[in-house]
């Protein structure tokens, strides 16, 4: 998890938006954080590499995101289906009696069963995390996210399940509204009939069971009412048949709409939980911040081209005087060791030094560090017409190549000739 403060900033930002929008804004932000050129786009100073400035800059840089209309369109379509279905049930029986089983089945019992199945598949099924098992739902995703769907399945599935329930709620709400609208302008009679239920008493008991949830404020259909509204019977009372509608509406609300609405509320809560989890446990922002914080070194030295390799020198054949730098050299007699005492002493000696040859060798070992003070010493002799060259001596080590590169660069930088002792060269 990120720091609590950073989590709080992100959650406050993304959950402040409407939930349907927040998931896509969040995923777009994640994609933005992952893009290779994001640091250049953001162009933030090191001091501003934290959540708030990044979010603010991202907002400015992001093109206005079109609202995800596919889910809205499908809710609209679902509403149309609901209204059409109810209209179909009512209009078909314009002058006739509507069999109560039909609206009960279409808008109460079947939706109830479907709600139970939906609850299972969205809350308990092992397939609830797999978009692969719900390929038809992919069409609800914005195109830009369809390719990323595999990465964000739990979050997208949670959103998709919630949207499905919203569509189902739209279906039932539209159906009820269509019923209300048609009911204003037309009178509908409802009745019942059944091949298997022969006695009104049986149907009355069945309706008592069905209407139990609302029996406190709306009486269950009485036996007399049931007898009067049996379709095809001589004693059918058309007037009484118009009074089925309160129980019908309650059945649609209690068995159709309320469970679906409850499931939608639960799935909305779970989706919000999943979104919070995703925000808290995503490291995309931290990865981006790390990239933003990288500070390249300023004005560093680089070798423009490979320096020339040193020339091999056999000390036994050497005629030039050797000046040791900062330490005695084994196996060679040196006229002086420079670099150990104070600078003035070395300077005086160099000014007084008059070799018989036109050049001298400054002997160093690989593990020593080339410094400008050594260069100054060589330059002092050069000003007197004495050419100073570098001679690398000593023992080879694991870092031979690395150390040699430094000396090669130093020699080429100052224009010194570079030699390597034959024995050392052979060792390597």
């Amino acid at each position, binding site marked *: *998890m*990120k*720091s609590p*403060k*950073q989590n709080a900033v992100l959650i406050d930002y993304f959950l402040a938006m409407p939930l349907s929008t927040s998931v896509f804004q969040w995923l777009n932000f994640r994609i933005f954080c992952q893009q290779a050129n994001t640091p250049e786009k953001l162009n933030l100073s*090191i001091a501003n*590499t*934290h*959540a708030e400035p990044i979010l603010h800059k991202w907002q400015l840089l992001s093109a206005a995101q079109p609202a995800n209309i596919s889910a809205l369109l499908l809710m609209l379509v679902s509403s149309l289906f609901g209204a059409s279905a109810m209209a179909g049930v009512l209009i078909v029986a314009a002058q006739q009696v509507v069999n109560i089983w039909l609206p009960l089945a279409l808008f109460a019992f079947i939706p109830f069963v479907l709600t139970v199945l939906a609850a299972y598949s969205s809350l308990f099924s*092992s*397939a*609830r*995390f*797999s978009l*692969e098992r719900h390929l038809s739902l992919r069409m609800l995703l914005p195109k830009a996210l369809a390719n990323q769907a*595999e*990465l964000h*399945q*739990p979050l997208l599935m949670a959103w998709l399940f919630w949207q499905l329930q919203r569509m189902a709620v739209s279906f039932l709400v539209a159906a009820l509204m269509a019923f209300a609208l048609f009911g204003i302008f037309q009178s509908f009679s409802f009745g019942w009939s059944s091949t298997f239920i022969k006695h009104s008493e049986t149907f009355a008991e069945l309706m008592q069971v069905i209407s139990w949830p609302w029996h406190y404020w709306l009486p269950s259909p009485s036996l007399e009412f049931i007898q009067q509204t049996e379709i095809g019977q001589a004693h059918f009372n058309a007037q009484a048949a118009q009074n089925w509608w309160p129980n019908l509406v309650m059945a649609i609300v209690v068995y159709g709409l309320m469970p679906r609405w409850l499931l939608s509320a639960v799935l909305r809560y779970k989706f919000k939980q999943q979104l919070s*989890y995703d925000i808290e*446990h995503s*490291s995309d922002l*931290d*990865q*981006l911040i*790390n*990239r933003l*914080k*990288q*500070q*390249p*070194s*300023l*004005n*560093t*030295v*680089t*070798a423009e081209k490979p320096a020339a390799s040193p020339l091999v020198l056999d000390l036994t054949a050497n005629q030039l005087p050797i000046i040791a730098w*900062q*330490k005695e050299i084994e196996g060679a007699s040196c006229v002086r060791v420079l*670099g*150990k005492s*104070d*600078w*003035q002493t*070395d300077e005086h000696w160099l000014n007084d030094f008059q070799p018989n040859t036109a050049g001298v060798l400054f002997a160093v070992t690989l*593990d020593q*560090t*080339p*410094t*400008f*003070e050594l260069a*100054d010493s060589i330059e002092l002799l050069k000003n007197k017409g004495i050419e100073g060259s570098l001679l690398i001596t000593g023992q080879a080590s*694991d*870092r031979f190549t690395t*150390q040699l*590169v*430094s000396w090669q*660069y*130093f020699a080429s930088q100052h224009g010194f000739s570079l030699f390597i002792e034959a024995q050392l060269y052979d060792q390597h």
Partner: protein
Amino acid sequence: MTNTSPCFAVVGHPNKGKSSIVATLTRQDAVKISELSGTTTQAQAFALQVNNQTLYTLIDTPGFQRPRQVLHWLEAKAVNAAQRQQAVIDFIEQADAQKFHDEKELLQPILNGAGILYVVDGSIPYSGEFEAEMSILQWTSAPRMALINPIGGEQYIDQWQQALSQFFSVVRVFNPMSVDQQKQAAVLSAFAELYEPWRAPLNHAITQLAEFNRQLDEQGAELVVAALIQMQGHKVSRNVPASFAQSALSAQLKTQYQQELRDIESALQRKIQALYAHPSMLVNAQRLEVETPDLFDTDQWYLYGLDRNKLVALATSVGMAAGAAVDASVGGASLMAGAIAGGVVSSIASVVATLKPEKLNIKGMPLAGKKLTAGPVKALPFSYVLLGRGIDFLGLIRQRTHADRRTFDVAPSSMTERVAALSKTEQIKLTRILLKSHKGLNNKELLQLRDWILRML
């Protein structure tokens, strides 16, 4: 002292690892480290920021190039010890800017309030040439400590400790290439001893860093879990006419599937690199092989150390647990036959599966045509292979310092040893989760898997 948060100038001879120390302690991959002596020519501050808080700042400086000449200049200015600090100030203001550019660059931050971290190479013998620069640093009167960097070995560390302790109040050995989190905390504690006003912020920094490292490990483990789920559930499909020659397409499909799994794994590695702030790191890892004889034969199982016996034992335990649930549901009337049968069946199935592990699951579709699908591979050994590779990478990168610029070699390790960090019950639960991971896991299972990965690191 003018700085409010801890700030240290890292100074010393050229090429002694100053930039490496700065890179490691500030977690900066972009600090230039080169074998060339004198790479750094300009002082540059690098802050360690954690959760938008600057814990401390290290200033990478050029090395001393003319220390004896500087000391000579200073000695000419200061008659006694009381005038030494002023002499250093005068040096910054008056000395030749071109000749003493590097010394001015390294001394200016110190005069601005930075403490001193003096770095030496513990693999070369101590000699008197270093005393000029140590004397100059003494003259600044700034709080100072020495770090002995054993670049080429630790042969002369004792020598250095004896010499340095005469100039510096605190001396520590610090290898920026291999130091772990504990040793980094120890060095920060040593920093805290230098200067009283910095004690509290540095102790706070140690606590913050420990928490930050814990957060990093959690996030790294979560990345491994996410990639594992993605790879476990991944498949590649192709619709072909019924009469199409299946064998030709099978090989192509397998290759595509394998490549896509490798792409997912590469993406995981890049994300972990970014998380641990190693964006420039080059990686050398064995390529993921989904279906080769080497991967699925017994020999290759041993590559991850999850041997056949271990697999069969785990599968047997899972079967027994499932059978026991059936026994419980009948109130024990089955006399534990469910558990026994479950264990036997799972055991036999796993033995048979481990006989022919090389087969990849390819499905066909009847009637109008065929749909050939490669994956998901549900075999348990493969799940452990994926998990092991992710843990190997994560485990190695969390130990890598930011001074280490070598190619990152990912060597596979033994999954048997890693899994042994869990209890038997947890191992069974892990197996169950891996078996169903191709369908996706709930948040609780994801967090559990993350916690197990952290224990197995």
